């Protein structure tokens, strides 16, 4: 079922912000009026608010901290978030949530909206990141995220990668964990996120049943992978 509200969460460094932005673009391209809520009040580096101009250029409204406080690490949320949730003008609302349970806690105050309007809550999982390297770790994380947010996670977005060392073999190895996790917790894998630059290499090994979601990495400086 298509939902108006999509919540993107997961562990630190799982790819939430990259996916949130790409998903916002994706929905905007379909013709929807999209609002992106940057709820990352945990970490002042690599946040979607840094890309607000580009997003605005595609008709996407970004709401984060009040203007002028973008570079502060204060846990302050803008009242405009409520505006975006309440305004039916926005047909799609994407939440880019901060990492780990501590980041998910910020969702709590919006609970009444989720309870009445419905939502989909997807978490990014990279089996090569600390905290989600095995099913036990990932299961614990998911339980903690659900407790902190008081919401049920409805989908897994696979983000299987080892950065510049990603290979088809590495990808397939990661898929084993992802599928076990999905089976164990009965949470479906909604997308396999793949960085555009590795898509040609990975697409041939990705089983057909998966929807592949290609993402142009916007936050990562090119010199990092030299």
């Amino acid at each position: 079922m298509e939902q108006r509200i999509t919540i993107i969460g997961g562990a630190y460094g799982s790819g939430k912000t990259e996916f949130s932005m790409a998903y916002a673009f994706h929905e905007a391209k379909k013709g929807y009026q999209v609002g992106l809520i940057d709820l990352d009040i945990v970490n002042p580096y690599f946040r979607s608010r840094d890309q607000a101009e580009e997003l605005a250029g595609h008709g996407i409204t970004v709401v984060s901290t009040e203007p002028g406080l973008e570079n502060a690490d204060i846990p302050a949320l803008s009242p405009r978030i409520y505006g975006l949730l309440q305004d039916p003008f926005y047909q799609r609302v994407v939440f880019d949530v901060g990492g780990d349970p501590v980041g998910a806690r910020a969702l709590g105050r919006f609970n009444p909206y989720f309870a009445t309007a419905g939502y989909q809550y997807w978490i990014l999982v990279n089996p090569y990141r600390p905290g989600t390297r095995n099913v036990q770790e990932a299961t614990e994380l998911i339980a903690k995220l659900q407790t902190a947010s008081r919401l049920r996670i409805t989908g897994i977005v696979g983000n299987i990668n080892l950065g510049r060392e990603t290979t088809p073999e590495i990808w397939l190895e990661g898929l084993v964990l992802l599928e076990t996790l999905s089976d164990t917790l009965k949470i479906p894998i909604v997308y396999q996120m793949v960085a555009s630059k590795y898509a040609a290499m990975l697409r041939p090994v990705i089983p057909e049943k998966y929807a592949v979601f290609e993402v142009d990495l916007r936050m990562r400086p090119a010199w990092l992978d030299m």
Partner: protein
Amino acid sequence: MAERIMMKGNEAFAEGAIKAGCHFFFGYPITPQNEIPEYMSRRMPEVGGTFIQAESEVSAINMVYGAGGAGARAMTSSSSPGVSLKQEGISYIAAAEVPCVIVNVARGGPGLGGLTPSQADYFQAVKGGGHGDYHMVVFAPASVQEIIDLMYEAFVTADKYRTPVMVLADGLLGQMMEPVVLRDWEDLQIPEKPWATTGMVSGKPQSVINSLGLAPEELENLNLRLQKKYRTIEENGVRYEEDGVEDAELIIVAYGTSARVSKSAIAKARAEGKKVGLFRPITLWPFPSKRLAELAEAGKRFMAVEMSAGQMIEDVKLAVNGKTEVEFYGRYNGAIPSVTEVYQAIIKSFDNREVQK
């Protein structure tokens, strides 16, 4: 056993320390290094270690002083303003010759500054920071893998010379994510520490950890011993990396994030036939002065690239000793220089030479 994993720099500081046998972490939160204490708070209990969130940075560094004095591998981490607060403790630790590791994931200053990355704590790290005639060994990693490897080196060096060691990074190194190999070190033997304060044993002399030397001759003896130790470290502890310096006319001197950015800029300039190379100090103290002097002797000119108003450049100039030119390119608004900016600085340097000819 080696494991491949995607890690953030801050996670690597923490896991690297644990892999190096560090079982005591004391810290106080500050952005952009909060992932270090957070990771430690979870991991330390798993390895039977101790994590304490102290009530202040001053308290944390003094807990390190105590744990290190008792012979444990202990560390603290912070970011610029927090590291300023630790300086008194670091001076005491240097005087008492207590091995320990201090991580600084630096942010923009002066004052409270900002949260964005910076290399403006170079002077503080290598020229003292605290009071008195002391030095710390200062390592400057440039990748997440190197963070892990240098955390091990840092603990080994600290024990070997009974000295505080700093691992100096900037906020971007702390936050950036790269693939790394996590391995268990084969020779993870923490050396015997007969000087440690682990309780009286009859027949053994009393161990005293102290930084007070009231008698002038006693204090001078301590300083003579420290200076002798520093000369030994200068002799044996220098580390650097070179890339394409042999045929280079211009050598970029940069460490940490600046070195990574410079590497891309150099590749771009090389592709256009500019003879430019990279010299990357891995230890900021002891500074690789000898090698830079040799390169200056060979007629190379230099450009320091830093995320500061120009701090390391002073050590480059001391090493070059007026033999050739030392230029500078820096950003100090809490921003990292872009590849294009460094590339343009390189091209400008070559153009200026053409004009002079």
